[in-house]
């Protein structure tokens, strides 16, 4: 997979937090360490976002990432991460629903079910996709359904983690 090009947001962030000695570019113009962020002339001319604006956009990016797995990173032009997240979360949801895992609903009483509902809702719109896929309902009387329940919860928690990652990247943390 080709190396991801850092987004303007990331470049903006690194520029503001860069040390006094920036990394020396190589003869080809690229940096020695590919983990470092390249600052383009366009970035240098661009006005940095104000703190309030950055926070608002960061929240919007996180919300987008939560609603559709990978969308938050796609907005930040982190294409590799966006594609990987979309496919991993969708695969977990598809297999979890295929194994007839339990998809928790909001009207349960006990704490475990509420916690499960929060985890499942972490998958955003994929929560409803899982419900649609599971036409015959959950079956946790067998171990297979139990594994499916874990996979569905994992999909949600992974998507929440990804949304948090996109939020931090937009806010300026090196991600």
């Amino acid at each position: 997979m080709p190396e991801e090009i850092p987004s303007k947001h990331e470049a903006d962030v690194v520029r503001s937090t860069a040390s006094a000695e920036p990394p020396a570019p190589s003869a080809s113009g690229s940096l020695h360490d590919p983990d470092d962020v390249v600052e383009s002339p366009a970035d240098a001319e661009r006005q940095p976002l104000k703190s309030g604006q950055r926070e608002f956009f960061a929240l919007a990016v996180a919300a987008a990432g939560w609603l559709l797995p990978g969308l938050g990173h796609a907005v930040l032009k982190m294409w590799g991460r966006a594609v990987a997240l979309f496919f991993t979360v969708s695969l977990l949801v598809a297999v979890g629903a295929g194994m007839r895992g339990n998809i928790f609903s909001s009207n349960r009483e006990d704490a475990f079910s509420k916690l499960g509902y929060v985890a499942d809702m972490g998958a955003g719109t994929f929560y409803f996709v899982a419900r649609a896929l599971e036409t015959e309902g959950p079956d946790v009387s067998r171990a297979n359904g139990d594994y499916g329940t874990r996979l569905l919860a994992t999909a949600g928690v992974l998507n929440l983690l990804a949304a948090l990652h996109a939020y931090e990247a937009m806010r300026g943390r090196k991600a």
Partner: protein
Amino acid sequence: MSVMVDPELKLSHLQAMVFFALVISIAFGFLSRRTAYKRARYIIWSLVLFLLAGVGIGWLMYPFSR
């Protein structure tokens, strides 16, 4: 005589564990590393650790299973 096809996906415990470890390793690799080489290394390393931890914990629980 008609044959009913069971649409339910069936995975053994080991298959489910390997699937879980692989998918999570890929996601973590892409989230935490930038270059393809570093991602591949991280994914393989994470997958091996997941599997070792899973099998190790399984063996630790073995004396209590009977």
